[in-house]
């Protein structure tokens, strides 16, 4: 059963781990800008992207700014719908207790419903 309270206008899908590339940072930037423009933003962490939420991260070794401070700022931008692919957590031996923010986990059919429910979907 799809929970309609999880629907927003803009769905930002984050598919990459926090370090190694700038995908996560640039994806989060897009989400923050959408929120700053008054759009209701939903974040969806899938695949390696679920590791972005693991608590206790340090700054990257390559001089990148860490993404954890940005994630901790999401609430200030009224981005409070954080969805996580349950299967991706399971595959990596992670549970919601390992994550730094409260999330809603989704099974595959709910993922499909979430995609269908957002007018704009952006992939990072």
């Amino acid at each position, binding site marked *: 059963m799809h929970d309609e309270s999880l629907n927003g*206008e*803009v769905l930002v899908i984050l598919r990459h781990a926090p370090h190694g590339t700038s995908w996560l940072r640039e994806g989060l*930037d*897009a989400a923050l*800008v*959408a929120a700053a*423009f008054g759009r209701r933003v939903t974040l969806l962490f899938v695949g390696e992207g679920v590791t972005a939420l693991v608590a206790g991260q340090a700054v990257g070794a390559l001089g990148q700014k860490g993404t954890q401070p940005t994630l901790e700022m999401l609430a200030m931008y009224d981005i409070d719908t954080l969805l996580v692919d349950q299967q991706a957590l399971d595959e990596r031996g992670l549970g919601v207790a390992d994550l730094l923010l409260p999330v809603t986990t989704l099974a595959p059919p709910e993922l499909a419903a979430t995609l269908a429910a957002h007018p*704009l979907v*952006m992939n990072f």
Partner: protein
Amino acid sequence: MRYALLVQGGPYSRQAAHSALRFGEAAIARGHRLETVFFYHDGVYNAARLAAPPQDEPHLVDRFRALHDNHGTQLKVCIAAGLRRGLLDEREAARHGKQGHSLEAPFELTGLGQLIDAGLSHDRLITFSP
């Protein structure tokens, strides 16, 4: 239909920009309107003014420029992603004390808000990522 494309792959090293061009040109050929191409992440390199590929390879910068010249497609480059990677128009080059500029019209540096607007105001936003 009114299309916007989001290009996030660099030219020549990834297929994303080639695919975006082919899709855009095909959509126009079928009677659709390609109103906006937004370049983000490594896609900003597709706006490099000084790109000089071998003559027997497609000139991606010129092909994007032709979309603007022939069909009025707006070519928008994320300013934050561009400046980090050395894509500066004349104004930004002067502001940062750089000799020469690497991006020129019809490509335009713009904010990420324009990407969100494009996504919500066009009938479709199609993402081309590596």
